[in-house]
């Protein structure tokens, strides 16, 4: 068996002293798309944030290996340069810092890390415009400060644009579908699908099955109270959509919690 792209084992994570993830395990191989579903507060965002290295999230035990290496030992920017990308649920505004400048600085940091020369300004702009078109981002927005005055949909598409530019090996999408209308959803999904390949993996966190009509996952996991309590193929998502999360809770209650397969 090849080394999984991402392998999480029995991960326990706390925020301000409260444990949110209680022993989560997950394995993602290159070429696969995993969807993580679950009710609000189940720990979905915590998972993506801790993988990206946010300081507020403390790993108390367990491990996460990325491309065979200890992911948790790396600084956030090194994780990024190694190809881990997080599309944020709530993209931030950064006043005065232009999208274009920031993205070029980010791209060149990645290239330098890989021992590649910096991309010159002309070439960069050419690529950027092309990718912007792909996710329907107005070129005028590119020179504006990051997300300042962007609509909710524009912010989300801007996240995907950054992903297209940085071409990550592992993409973590944190509720990228929330607040999007169906057209925007299609654009976002198309952007993600265009990056799907044998070398890349994705973890798509979502509340709704809707997104998975467009980004079809290989596996679906249900995250509940800080653990993955059920895993299946894409059909699981449809079942969840139909029946909600209640039945899982009942199933859990019925079973001996200790025997829940994770």
């Amino acid at each position, binding site marked *: 068996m090849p080394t999984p792209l991402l392998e999480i084992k029995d991960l326990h994570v706390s925020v301000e002293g409260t444990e949110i993830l209680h022993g989560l395990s997950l394995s993602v191989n290159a070429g696969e798309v995993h969807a993580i579903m679950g009710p609000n507060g189940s720990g979905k965002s915590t998972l993506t944030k801790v993988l990206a290295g946010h300081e507020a999230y403390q790993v108390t035990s367990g491990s996460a290996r990325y491309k065979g290496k200890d992911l948790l030992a790396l600084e956030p920017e090194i994780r990024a340069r190694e190809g881990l990308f997080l599309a944020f649920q709530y993209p931030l505004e*950064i*006043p*005065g*810092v*232009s999208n274009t400048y*920031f993205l*070029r600085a*980010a791209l060149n*940091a990645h290239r330098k890390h890989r021992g590649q020369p910096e991309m010159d300004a002309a070439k960069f*702009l050419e690529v950027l415009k092309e990718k912007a078109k792909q996710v329907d981002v107005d070129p005028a927005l590119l020179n504006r400060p990051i997300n300042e005055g962007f609509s909710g949909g524009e912010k989300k598409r801007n996240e995907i644009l950054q992903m297209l530019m940085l071409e990550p090996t592992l993409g973590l999408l944190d509720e990228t579908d929330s607040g999007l209308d169906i057209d925007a959803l299609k654009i976002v999904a198309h952007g993600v699908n265009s990056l799907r390949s044998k070398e890349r993996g994705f973890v798509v966190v979502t509340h709704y099955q809707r997104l998975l009509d467009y980004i079809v996952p290989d596996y679906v996991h249900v995250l509940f109270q800080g653990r993955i309590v059920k895993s299946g193929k894409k059909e699981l998502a449809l079942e969840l959509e139909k029946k909600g999360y209640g039945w899982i809770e009942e199933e859990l209650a019925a079973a001996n919690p200790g025997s829940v397969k994770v």
Partner: protein
Amino acid sequence: MPDKDLQALTEQEYKYGFVSDIEMESIPAGVNEDIVKLISRKKGEPEFMLEWRLRALRHWRTMREPTWQKPHYPAIDYQSIIYYSAPKPKKELSSLDEIDPELRATFEKLGISLDEQKRIAGVTGGLDSATAASPAPGVTPRVAIDAVFDSVSVKTTFQETLKEQGIIFCSMSEAIRNHPELVQKYLGSVVPFTDNYFATLNCAVFSDGSFCYIPKGVRCPMELSTYFRINTAGTGQFERTLIIADEGAYVSYLEGCTAPQRDENQLHAAVVELVALDNATIKYSTVQNWYPGDKEGKGGIYNFVTKRGIAHKNARISWTQVETGSAITWKYPSCVLKGDNSVGEFYSVAMTRDYQMADTGTKMIHLGKNTKSTIVSKGISAGKGDQSYRGLVKITKAASGARNFSQCDSLLLGDKCGAHTFPYIESQNKSAVVEHEASTSKISDDQIFFLRQRGLSEEDAVNLIVNGFCKQVLSELPMEFAVEAQKLLGLKLEGAVG
């Protein structure tokens, strides 16, 4: 924010702290009528100037040093300051225009070329000539420089070129000798000799400075600039700048400054007066990089400056300042909006770190109808730095239709610094609209995390955010100076792309 980023931002060494070994001629320390007479005589001034100086001195003796400002400092002994210090002329120099090679070398080292053939590398002393970006093809931006060394102007470049259009750009001493009518008419017309403690002292003892007159309808073809350098120990620098833009004229002016690293505090008490006649525009930019003192707060310049402009009908005065140096910065570049439809602007970035203190802001005095003013102030406080924005917007009864907008933001880096905002708004006119907004915040951890998630180092992330915070002000500076200012702020160069 991680401590090491703060350190990177706050622990930059001061690069211009060297002392030049130049033979100086100084007068005895202290201020009295004899000293004032001596300065006036050394400058070969006409009688009216001496009279004016003496009146100022007499008035100064009746005044008390103000204490209302936030930064406090040990008492200054005004009798121990040397009020005049100038490089000794060397006999072997063949013409009046020739400069002591040591002086030339000093300014070269600061990135200031006194040679008209060479483009200046940096008005703020920010760049080595070798690393200066070459100008865009086809454009040769030129800057005329008045170089002031301690108490005197040593060289003013491009005087001849400017003269072709009737522009007078010279040292204040030269102006007093060659254009007494203009000096007598305008000197003290904006900042009278009774104005305030430091300005009054300046009136009595000022030794030099820059003078500029742009005739009617002329758009000054190049940036004008003064570079101030304090060199000698124990001196104070008291220079005086007067800029007159006649009807319909335009000028963009920049001042820069540095000083050697010393354990003692040195006083810099300058006065700048701007007169914008009907339809004229004056853009005045400052990149202030006086020696700030060491990490323990020892030494550094006290930068106590009075700057004020008067705008006549339809005129515009725009102050832009980037204040990164000095142990204490205490100044309020102001606009008296006298003429109808006149416009005043104030754009400021102030950064205080280590033990630096700044109390700065502006006054916008609306006298004319439909006058407009804009204030944008960005303060960055790091280390144990402490700074205050203090401003006054006054709408007088006659100023119908006046409009002001003020935005004052502070960014705090570290939990030992302070940031304060003290705006005064006085409105006596119901048709006037005044709006003031201010905010104080720290760099958000989430913003830093986002940028790091995209692959930027922590230090770059901080720089990028600080840069973005200041952008609105930096964009008001002439392009090449904006680059300098960003460097000074310890920022990465933004705007090279897109």
